[in-house]
């Protein structure tokens, strides 16, 4: 695993598909080779149970964090084989990490869960021709090749803007798609006309005042295609707070998708690419604005700890990685002033992205931003820290549980009466938007879903223009 051959771990050969590096010598199993104390850390007290969505839904221990850990431990102890049922269980877990917030014992569930999924993939217990093709297409092809991903995004954009999408929907053509795809088609996110590179210059400096900090911005992949406006807004608020922003072109996927889906080799390779693209030594902070990506990006130190060429750089990267809200709070962002004549009042609620609040423990800072907005009235919604069901690609792989969580979430949001729902992760954003649209009474306008940073950027702009946002 040296860096001499940069792509040594990553193969796009079909034959090598989804197979992670073999387990270290002396062990026939990734769970067995894991430091046993990580498994032992769980003392099965049950404090995680009421916070685990799949346990609350089913009431069965197997679908709980301590239940899943007991299965992993049974495998490590040689009391259970890596079976298909085990594999299915590892993919029934949302990976929302709510259990890690609830766990007084500090169990490193993220590590356990990613190791277990990697072992499931290594042993190919869930392997089917279709699954293999989908995994190869998504994990090994599209999400490792940033130009190809953007090319596909452009094609999708053409399809949406040319009227072909509308035509095929109105003629019922989309109903011809195979079962599950037909149900998902209406949820296809709307691709932006301009991606991040078209909206953001490689280096941007504050127009006025001193440069207080120098930061690098990560533009993401789904974020780049579907929410490039969030990236632009992130740059705007950073500039407004004295940060020089460096945005490398055509960025790669951060590898979070791969790590969460048991493809550790690709995750490691993509992490190296990020480290090649951005020298953490050259900036004060590396900024992520998507909860799911940030949670993974923070752990490059762990991911590459045994890579002699990258371990040190990865450690520095992890020290400098900041979620945008966290960074703004840390540098004491300037609260936007109310425009002349005052700002119109609006009730806003905040849905916490799992990987922002549980994965990164960033919970207070987005609320500070929302509270600073002129006219905003922050209304807390019930179960704000519960998963919305998006969970990466969970809404595609486990539509029933994802739908149950989406309905539950929409109910809590609606109960607040908020007209704006702030959330900071593209998956949550789409899941909420789709859920709220479907649940809206005929003729009514569903609440608007928006990233907190977009609201802040608008407030700064309104301030400059002297009119309400």
């Amino acid at each position, binding site marked *: 695993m040296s860096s001499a051959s940069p792509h040594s771990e990553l193969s796009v050969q079909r034959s090598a598909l989804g197979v992670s590096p073999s387990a270290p010598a002396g062990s026939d199993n990734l769970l067995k080779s894991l430091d046993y104390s990580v498994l032992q850390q769980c003392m099965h007290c049950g404090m995680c149970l009421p916070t685990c969505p799949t346990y609350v839904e089913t009431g069965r221990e197997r679908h709980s964090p301590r239940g899943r850990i007991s*299965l992993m431990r049974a495998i490590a102890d040689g009391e259970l084989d890596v079976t298909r049922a085990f594999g299915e269980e590892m993919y029934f877990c949302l990976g929302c990490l709510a259990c890690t917030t609830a766990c007084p014992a500090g169990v490193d569930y993220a590590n356990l869960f990613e190791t277990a999924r990697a072992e499931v993939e290594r042993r190919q217990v869930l392997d089917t021709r279709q699954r293999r093709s989908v995994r190869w297409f998504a994990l090994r092809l599209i999400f490792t090749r940033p130009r190809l991903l953007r090319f596909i995004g452009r094609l999708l954009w053409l399809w949406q803007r040319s009227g072909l999408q509308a035509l095929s929907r109105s003629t019922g053509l989309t109903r011809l798609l195979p079962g599950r795809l037909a149900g998902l088609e209406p949820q296809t996110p709307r691709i932006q006309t301009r991606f991040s590179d078209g909206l953001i210059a490689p280096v941007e400096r504050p127009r006025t005042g001193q440069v207080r900090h120098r930061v690098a911005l990560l533009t993401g992949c789904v974020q780049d295609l579907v929410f490039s406006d969030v990236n632009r807004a992130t740059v705007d608020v950073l500039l407004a707070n004295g940060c020089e922003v460096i945005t490398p072109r055509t960025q790669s996927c951060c590898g979070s998708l791969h790590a969460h889906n048991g493809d550790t080799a690709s995750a490691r390779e993509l992490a190296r690419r990020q480290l090649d693209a951005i020298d953490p030594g050259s900036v004060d902070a590396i900024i992520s604005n998507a909860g799911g990506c940030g949670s993974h990006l923070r752990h490059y130190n762990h991911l590459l700890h045994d890579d002699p060429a990258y371990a040190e750089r990865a450690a520095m990267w992890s020290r400098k990685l900041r979620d945008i809200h966290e960074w703004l709070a840390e540098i004491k962002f300037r609260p936007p002033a109310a425009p002349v004549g005052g700002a119109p009042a609006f009730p806003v609620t905040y849905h916490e992205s799992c990987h922002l609040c549980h994965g990164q423990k960033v919970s207070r800072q987005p609320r500070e931003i929302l509270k600073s907005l002129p006219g905003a009235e922050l209304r807390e919604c019930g179960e704000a820290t519960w998963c919305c069901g998006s969970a990466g690609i969970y809404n595609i792989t486990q539509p029933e549980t994802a739908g149950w969580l989406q309905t539950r979430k929409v109910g809590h949001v609606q109960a607040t009466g908020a007209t704006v729902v702030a959330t900071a992760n593209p998956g949550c954003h789409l899941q909420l938007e789709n859920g709220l649209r479907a649940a809206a009474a005929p003729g009514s306008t569903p609440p608007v879903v928006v990233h907190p940073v977009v609201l802040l950027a608008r407030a700064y702009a309104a301030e400059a223009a002297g009119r309400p946002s």
Partner: protein
Amino acid sequence: MSSSSSPSTPVPAPQPLPPAFVAALQTAFAAGSILTSREDLIPYGFDGTAALKQLPGVVVFPKDAASVSGVLKLARTHRVPVVTRGSGTGLSGGSVPVPGCVVLCLADMNRILELDAKNLTLSAEPGVITQRIYDAADAAGLFYPPDPGSMKISTIGGNVAENAGGLRGLKYGVTRNYVMGLEVVLADGSIVTLGNKCVKDVAGYNLRDLFIGSEGTLGVITRVLLRLLPKPGARQTLLATYASMDAAAETVSAIIAERIIPCTLEFLDQRTLRCVEAFAKVGLPTEAEALLLIETDGHPAAVADEASRIERICTQHQALAVRRAASAEEGVRLATARRSAFSALARLRPTTILEDATVPRSELAKMIRFINETAQKHRVEVATFGHFGDGNLHPTFLTDERNADEMHRVEAAMKEIFDYALSLGGTLTGEHGVGLAKKAYLPRQLGDATLSLLKTIKRSLDPDGLLNPGKIFD
């Protein structure tokens, strides 16, 4: 799944279940309410107790008492042991399966049946989460006081079966003090109702109390009728820190001597304090040797008066600092943090063994000194926290179950601590139950005649010995 059990708990090999028994269960239960695959069973092989596990034969989820009765009759016919379980958060191995058993998990019997505001009672199925009972009472302006550490996930049925305590024991007592009635399925499948909504009732033997704390060995509780109290008008939480354990213990004695009975009088030593703060981040002073968490509740005027008297007593007894919680929310945050103490201690070592030795409160300071000396003598790590007000201590061994030598030393220390607690007129267990974890020590506490009485009762109610066999005693 017995490889990593502690040396003290040899687990017999699993026995196969009679196929006819399993077939009959499969007819009686819908697919999602009966578990037989290995992946489904492994997660039911343990509860909250360290180093105890045993794979069950089958797990079923009855929906009502009739279904429970059906399982017990079948189990009797096929002579299959029955282990009843709620959320599996017990701390003495009470719901750990026995070889070849059916686990009767009552988690799906989770309805609150009635809240009677006229009679101040609440009726519920056994699988209702304790926190939900508290919340339902609270919403009606009422109060269900027992608050075991695991109340966010423990079931009320399990609380009754273990006679669970909690942080409010000093003033409000334990679960037993709030049970007015029970519906119980007996070993032969018959269903009995014991107790009612009457505050006074002396008709016949008081058998209800026999089932409270019986740890699933005498019958299966399928409904509980609970007593509620009016909600106290005010609460005030105080934190006092000390440079020595003795000063904290003297403070407690002085508070009681002043005729103040706080609702909560909790104690944490420095190790526990640091672990709790690392998890909960509620601003506990981690440099202190000992900390008292005190809560007074009741009429606002009485609370204000008691709080200032407690403050004065703490200061007079060398408290380094006394702090009042700024709000009721902060008070709740502090109590919640305290409830995480046991699990938070798991941060330090791979295995965390929680004990429950309890002494008359006048003997507390002596007991704590003895625990620390014994730990030193046997070179084992112990953190101590607990309910200072009611003498219920939780010396917690921080160890590694895979280190046989260390585990032997832990056991030696544990035995001495139990013996000493008994010599002070104490008990092995204040609130966790005997289960598997403490049964070896029970004969010493009860003596032959008492133990024999327990066994007589067990034999008369469960002649085939199928209800949670091997728990409490053999």
